[in-house]
């Protein structure tokens, strides 16, 4: 079975989630990845979403399209207020956070607010929602997105969600004491951050992808790790599970 780009993202991301952890997920790829992880290697993974749901269960064909609708609350163990949900994150209870974005820079700063000048934007995007909070308060952050040149750019127009800011210890100096942005997953590759400069670096390729293809779709200089691995392709079993979850392909396009 051949995986679509979004199926590839969900399958790759699911493998980062360990059992007995708590993941702060959003709708779409993060929720698909979390549900897939629960069905495979992490049955005790707890999924939390920002609408105020702790321990949701995703049912095949009934994928929520918003974090605060009834489908998201299915068989939850708790439905806290939104503010309380994020306060649990601020306290440090949540192991993983997932983010995507319209623009991402080499230090993992993400823009979901505006393209162009903030006062008179060329494109007004939906905004932060909980993204800024998730990257600030979750313990380990994964950025999951399509790999496109217009998305991976040298400097984002607006920092909605702060990554490593200017690199080195800039995140710490801004007062962001917690949260580590560890991994960027795309349909082409997996990137991590240099432990000193905190700049993105190519660590592994999706199956069949070349380093040149990654560079073509990256709008900034992307150094390469000494040893670039190749990620395993999604198994038929994983793809079947994802397609069962999202039969209408709301998010698996």
């Amino acid at each position, binding site marked *: 079975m051949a995986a679509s780009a979004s199926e590839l993202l969900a399958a790759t991301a699911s493998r980062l989630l360990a059992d007995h952890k708590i993941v702060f997920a959003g709708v779409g790829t993060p929720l698909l990845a979390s549900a897939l992880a629960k069905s495979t290697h992490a049955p005790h993974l707890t999924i939390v979403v920002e609408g105020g749901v702790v321990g949701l269960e995703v049912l095949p064909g009934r994928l929520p399209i918003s974090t605060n609708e009834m489908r998201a609350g299915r068989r939850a163990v708790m439905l806290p207020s939104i*503010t309380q949900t994020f306060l649990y994150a601020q306290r440090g209870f949540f192991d993983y956070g997932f983010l995507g974005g319209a623009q991402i820079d080499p230090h993992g700063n993400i823009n979901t607010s505006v393209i162009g000048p903030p006062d008179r934007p060329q494109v007004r995007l939906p905004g932060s929602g909980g993204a800024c909070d998730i990257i600030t*308060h979750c313990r380990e952050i994964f950025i999951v997105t399509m790999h496109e040149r217009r998305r991976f750019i040298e400097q984002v127009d607006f920092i909605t969600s702060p990554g490593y800011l200017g690199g080195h210890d*800039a995140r710490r100096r801004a007062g962001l004491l917690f949260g580590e942005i560890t991994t960027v997953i795309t349909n082409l590759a997996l990137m991590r951050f240099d432990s000193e400069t905190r700049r993105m670096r190519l660590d592994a390729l999706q199956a069949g992808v070349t380093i040149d293809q990654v560079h073509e779709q990256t709008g900034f200089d992307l150094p390469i790790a000494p040893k670039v691995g190749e990620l395993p392709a999604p198994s038929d079993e994983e793809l079947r599970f994802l397609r069962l979850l999202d039969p209408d392909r709301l998010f698996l396009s």
Partner: protein
Amino acid sequence: MTFVEARRRLEGKDRGLRDKRMPAGDAARLVQDGNHVAIGGCLYSRTPLVTLREILRLRRVDLTLSRNLMCYEGELFLVAGATRSLVTSWIGIGLPWGLSRIVREFVESGQARLEEWSHLALGLRYRAAAMGIPFLPTLSMLGSDLLGRTSARTMICPFTGETLCLVPALFPDVAVIHVHRADCFGNAQIDGYPHMDPDLAAAAATVILSAEEIVSTDEIRRTADRTVIPFFTVDAVVEAPFGAYPHECYGRYEADLEHIGGYARGVTAGGAAAVRAYLDEYVYGLDTFDAYLERFGTGRLRRQQQAAQELTR
């Protein structure tokens, strides 16, 4: 408004144990031109559409709207000319429908101002107001460009020396909230997601509450642990079954995603003209909420009720 002024305004109000039931049209008159109106629920969940329709019908202007995640009510108020100022962390119809064409048109052309906070930061602004204090500290928004473009400030923590983001209390003039059940005084219970509504009720100077059903105070007393909004915060109680429709009310009816999707496709194709046509058809053209619900038809309402029962079983 400072927290002291907000406190004085509250103290000057009648907070008596009185029957506050009234039609939605009368309740909406509590909203004045220029008011800051905070909207309960979240995106297409428990949106107080019964009251919002009446505010639109009154042709109020210069309103500021705030809501944690704003859905199509933001577009309706923009196109109706009721607001030019939105305070939120996210605005759209829902992920599958992409960007809001209306928000883009109004913000990109400078016709409307959108003040963006993080979800938690906005929640803490309402929480600080609900607590009667001027601000709350958080780590959210530090390092982001949201920080410099809002009235948030930073300070060095006097106890630890760490940098903190301070978000100012937000005291809305009016909060508009839809709940599952309330008594005639305004003691209110919410099933499912509370969203930020209990904080909104305590933060606002005036609270307009609509409820799927009005129950006796005895019934409230029997399940007092479920009461999240006390009567002394509430000014008007509107009885409104399906009061959030076509948005969802947890366990009662599922969001009518076909209707919302149809609206979204119409707006993508037709822009503000499509919203004007929608306002004419569903807001200005239908005098009563019953007439509004009849427009959807009982079969459709029943179907959405059954879906909700299945989803929360």
